[in-house]
């Protein structure tokens, strides 16, 4: 299918026909901002300071799927982590497994002196027997092999997978060669790809505002865990912990972890995370699981005003200036999908339009443009609706506004 991207010159239109523009009120499903608060005075990084306005549009098929699903991500975990030390590993630690074939990874903590481990350094205990690791592991990857995967494993990391014949339950792990590095911190990751015991964690939204509650729903497949079996916390993009999640069971039996009030937004780039830890009784013994999921948290730096400039509409196309209020100067983008009306009255997508420009603090406009050729080639016409309208702050990488039905354009 041909896709032709039209680059519009803002403000260059010919004979125009006035038309009515009706703003459609947001619903509860939309992400909006009622009022803007001043942004913190501290300097924050701006990712885009380009001043040139850019507006583009392209045609889409009438049967194009435009669901804009905002269903939050559901994290799943069959693994957990243990804090330990080199001395504890040298003395021997217990690992709790719920299925054969566990994959075990040893990593020195950041800053710890890395000891070069070999499979010969490991002793595995299963039941009453001790085994040299080489007898009971399927695959062993040293630091070099793991590094070569490009997966950024820590220096000194080794990983191995147990043979299924080792079974499950409590597994002993001893690393004699670490005795001399007793105080060094290590992290043990136990991943159980064959286990049916899975921790789920889902945030209630993918975007939050400062000061609003953050709710994380947790579930456990394969075991009946209680709210008291869960712990967790929320971290900012810079890794800073901002508060614990308090877990409770609702009337419907669902378990949620709640941080009642999200803190101030962070200027560090990236997403916030909820970290969840489960420690409970599975069908055959203790089960441990860790999971985390990400979401955005940002103070709005702009909002739609619901106002527009005069709609320019002619054979050359249409251009709609969308009113924006900016809390601070930045490059703001509006994007939307133009839906047209078929002969039977059904609304179908016609074109996608994006436009961005630099705005100073205060009120301004960003103009969406769609070419006459695109409108003419579509099987659907007026009245139109601008749907799936989004406002972004490109300078601060913030998604500010999402409105499923925004404007109705009637000739």
């Amino acid at each position, binding site marked *: 299918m041909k896709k032709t991207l039209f680059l519009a010159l803002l403000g260059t239109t010919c004979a125009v026909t006035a038309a009515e523009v009706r703003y459609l009120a947001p619903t509860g499903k939309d992400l909006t901002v009622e009022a803007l608060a001043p942004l913190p005075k501290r300097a924050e990084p701006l990712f885009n300071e380009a001043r040139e306005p850019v507006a583009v549009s392209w045609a889409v098929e009438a049967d194009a799927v435009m669901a804009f699903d905002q269903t939050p991500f559901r994290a799943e975990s069959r693994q957990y982590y243990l804090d330990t030390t080199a001395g504890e590993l040298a003395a021997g630690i217990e690992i709790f497994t719920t299925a054969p074939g566990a994959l075990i990874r040893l990593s020195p903590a950041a800053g710890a002196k890395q000891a070069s481990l070999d499979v010969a350094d490991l002793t595995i205990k299963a039941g009453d027997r001790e085994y040299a690791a080489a007898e009971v592991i399927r695959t062993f990857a040293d630091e070099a092999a793991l590094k070569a995967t490009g997966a950024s494993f820590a220096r000194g990391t080794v990983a191995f997978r147990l043979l299924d014949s080792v079974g499950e339950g409590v597994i002993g792990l001893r690393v004699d060669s670490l005795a001399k590095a007793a105080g060094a911190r290590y992290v043990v990751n136990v991943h159980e790809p064959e286990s049916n015991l899975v921790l789920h964690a889902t945030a209630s939204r993918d975007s939050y505002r400062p000061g609003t509650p953050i709710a994380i729903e947790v579930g456990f497949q394969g075991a009946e865990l209680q709210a008291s079996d869960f712990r967790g916390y929320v971290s900012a993009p810079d*890794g800073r912990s901002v508060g614990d999640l308090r877990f409770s069971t609702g009337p419907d039996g669902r378990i949620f972890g709640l941080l009642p009030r999200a803190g101030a937004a962070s200027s560090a780039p990236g997403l916030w995370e909820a970290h969840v830890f489960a420690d409970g009784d599975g069908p055959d013994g203790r089960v441990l699981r860790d999971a985390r999921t990400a979401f955005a948290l940002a103070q709005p730096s702009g909002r739609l005003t619901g106002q527009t400039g005069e709609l320019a509409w002619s054979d050359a196309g249409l251009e709609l200036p969308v009113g924006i209020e900016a809390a601070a100067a930045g490059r703001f983008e509006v994007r939307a999908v133009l839906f047209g009306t078929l002969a039977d009255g059904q609304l179908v997508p016609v074109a996608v339009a994006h436009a961005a420009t630099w705005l100073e603090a205060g009120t301004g406009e960003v103009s969406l443009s769609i070419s006459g050729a695109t409108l003419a080639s579509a099987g659907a016409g007026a009245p139109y609706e601008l749907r799936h309208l989004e406002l972004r702050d490109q300078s601060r990488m913030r998604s500010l506004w999402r409105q499923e039905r925004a404007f109705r354009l009637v000739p």
Partner: protein
Amino acid sequence: MRTRFAVLLCALLLATGVQAAGTGVAFVHGTGKQTDALNDYWKREFVDSVRQGLPNSSNYTVINCDFEQFMWTSGAAGCLAGQLHGFITSKNLDDVVVITHSNGGNVMRWILSNPTWDSRYPTIINATRWVNALAPSSLGTPLAEAVTQGNVFEQSLGWLLGYASDAVRMQQPSWMAYYNANYLLGTSGRPSLPKGFWNVVGTDVETAVWDGDSYCGGYTLNLGLEITQAWLDSCSDGFLECSSQTGAGQTWFYDTSRMNGREPLSHNQSRRKCFGLDVILRNDL
């Protein structure tokens, strides 16, 4: 199929400076900071083989950028845009096939999904015929989460395992879910990308010592991938699950359906001259 660039706005033609027709190919690497991707990332034999499919085999470029950064930064997408824009305008190209590998697909998809971010982006998009995305990291990978996991439960500043660059953090599945839903196009339920994004999917890692095919792309590299595959679904190239590789755009082919000897492509092999991949890409030009 050629895609023409055209502007029609009240009889005003938009001058783009691109007037002569020309076909080219660009190679976009994955996560990492590259200064000599031709020799370090792709290997010269692979690039030289692929570019023989061009009418003018000198119309190629191998991108070198810092894809350790978040995809939207000046060092990542900004760098990619600068090199692609320069390539297109200096050689007067209007038909460029962009070949990406792994996270390079995400950075290219950022450009395709955010055409207003930078005034160079529309020129790049209009000159792009399509993207051939080799093992793209479109939905991220559980391995990215595995290498950034901190300690168990501490109220104080969490510490990170490994050297989790911003790009690695970004490729955690929950992070990519957010960016796919809010900033990127082409995934299920979202508007499609303005140009084709065609996935080549790697489905397995073979590390049999006695099988010479395991050595294509480097045997040591493949052994590590067999461990990491345990974190992934049964269908994976050792770094990315098949579901991630097919998460955006459209699937061109799965490796075993087209590779010589029906060989699978591990994550390293999908950027190398293995099992005829170079010939397929050459013929696609």
